């Protein structure tokens, strides 16, 4: 079956431009997560969607970052007025329920490598 997919796989943009990153979760998964991983670092939580609940945006680093999830499926992470420090791999993951006290396995997409020149 299809896993989590992300597009584009690579994105090079100029400082100040807006970018949109897309995530298609596994069908039927109600929870969706965005993470950011800088070179050689661990994963930094950004935002979390669970069903129809309001998203947990506590990890977004600034108001230039936003995300939406339409129809409980596809999600788009938008970064406005990109800065060089936004360069990283952006990873999306989905899980079945997202409410099991950390027992859900998260299934990750291949990531989008963003380079801001």
């Amino acid at each position, binding site marked *: 079956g299809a896993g989590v997919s992300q597009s584009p796989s690579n994105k090079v943009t100029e400082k100040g431009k807006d970018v949109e990153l897309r995530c298609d979760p596994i069908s039927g998964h109600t929870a969706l997560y965005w993470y950011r991983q800088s070179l050689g670092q661990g994963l930094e939580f950004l935002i979390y969607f669970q069903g129809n609940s309001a998203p*947990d945006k506590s990890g977004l680093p600034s108001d230039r970052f936003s995300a939406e999830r339409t129809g409980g499926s596809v999600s788009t992470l938008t970064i406005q007025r990109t800065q060089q420090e936004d360069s990283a*791999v952006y990873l999306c993951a989905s899980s079945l329920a997202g409410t099991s*006290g*950390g*027992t*859900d*396995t*998260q299934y990750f997409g291949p*990531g989008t490598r963003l380079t801001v020149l």
Partner: protein
Amino acid sequence: SQQGEEDPQALSIQEGENATMNCSYKTSINNLQWYRQNSGRGLVHLILIRSNEREKHSGRLRVTLDTSKKSSSLLITASRAADTASYFCATDWRPGNTGKLIFGQGTTLQVKP
């Protein structure tokens, strides 16, 4: 920060040897998971250990959990070149009962053929 720490940051061993990676965390947890990442891309789930378990096995993997020390270890026995990857521990986000996970910084393992 609630984020965990892993050590060593990097580990290089010969094929056939065992590899041990450690993870420490800061808050009480329900569960701890280990993930593997190849070439800086998507992560793959390896194993989950619950807070009331002390040891768990899956193939060549052995995970231990010591909640009194807030630490876990991942042992890979009889390592292979294909085990070369980064390994991350992840704990559930407390307080609250959600699916959010906190990831450690990872251990980069190189297995030389």
